[in-house]
């Protein structure tokens, strides 16, 4: 994938499918086995990232959802929402300039990187069955809400079964 990105050769479809390959590989080797073992998997991003990103790039929404149909719906999904200005500020503070693909420059939306990012992220607001957390609020407050919702979901969770395994957590990103 790095090879294609470096040469800016990817079309919206090949970009989408290569990310799907990467996701499928992690899903099969890192997410599915711990789930089968009764463990809790924390995924930093899931299929929804692809749905939003790839549809914003122009592929058909039903197509990209179909591509990811092998992945089950999570028991709980949080969507950390930030106003676009905040997300842009955070990204720009971290590095000199936005990466070409992150800003959707290959879509030819705008020749100005920052303006292009603004347009691109603005389209990434298609929300599914996600719990929205306002990520511009303080971290402790956000964490409190996340823990409460997670606790509700895990009320029936069998700790004993997971402890009998080789640990009770797995994370995937």
């Amino acid at each position, binding site marked *: 994938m790095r*090879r*294609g990105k470096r040469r800016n*050769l*990817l*079309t*919206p*479809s*090949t970009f989408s*499918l*290569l990310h*799907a*390959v990467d996701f*499928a*590989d992690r899903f*099969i080797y890192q997410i599915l086995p711990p789930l089968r073992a009764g463990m809790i998997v924390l995924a930093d991003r899931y299929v929804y990232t692809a749905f939003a990103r790839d549809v914003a*790039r*122009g*592929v*058909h929404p*039903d*197509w990209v959802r*179909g*591509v990811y*149909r*092998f992945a089950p719906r999570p028991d709980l999904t949080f969507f950390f929402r930030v106003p676009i200005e905040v997300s842009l500020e955070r990204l720009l503070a971290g590095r000199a300039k936005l990466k070409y693909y992150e800003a959707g420059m290959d879509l030819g939306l705008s020749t100005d990187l920052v303006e292009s990012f603004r347009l691109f992220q603005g389209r990434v607001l298609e929300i599914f069955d996600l719990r929205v957390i306002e990520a511009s609020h303080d971290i402790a407050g956000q964490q409190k809400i996340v823990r409460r919702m997670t606790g509700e979901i895990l009320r029936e969770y069998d700790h004993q079964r997971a402890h009998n395994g080789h640990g009770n957590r797995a994370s995937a990103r």
Partner: protein
Amino acid sequence: MATEPPHAKRWHGHGLPYLDEKPLPGHLIVIEGTDGVGRSTQVELLRGWLELEGYAVSNTGWTRSPLLSATIADAKAGHQLTPITFSLLYAADFADRLEHEILPALQAGFVVIADRYMYTAFVRNAVMGADPDWTHEVFGMALIPDLVLYLEIDVDTLVPRVVRGKGMDYWESGMHLALSSDIFDSFQNYQRRVIAEYDRLAREFGFITIDARESINKIQTELRAHVSEYLRRAQSGPHPEGDAPSRPKT
């Protein structure tokens, strides 16, 4: 569909919505058939003949995209692939060739000969046990070809051809499916399943079936007859200049 010209283009599913709708006056001809059946020989002969007939010809083959051919070869060498990652890599290779080779050539009025097409993925995925509905969804970006010529063979005729040719390889013998630890048994078992699935698709998608047990020349003569007949009908249709592919209603 009786009102459509014989070469009206359609997408298999949702197509590529981000592309401008452009007429595709070219012709997409697919040659399908299992490993070792003689597809590449026939494609080369067909190409030479069509060029002499005055057509601009472009050909494309499975896993030959500049973007992915090396990646797929690496992944196969590592044996890390599952049916899902395998299918998605094939789909990415296919999409790359579709957008960079097939559609531009069709726009320019070329005859495109595809050595294998999406049906190869349908067959392999079905044999690997991937959900067939999922495979169709993934290949929803594909353009439906104008003509599919299927080289049909039976396993007993295929085996000596492959043994005399390049030999039995790991993947073509279906060793990844662990059907048998013996490569010869596995090859027979796997290819029997592949051929059965091709035969099923031939009925479902209306392939033109050619008996591949015949000689190279006899097969080529038959292929040319079908291609000539198709081109004659396509060029006498109501829109010989071609139309943009139609999209499904959503």
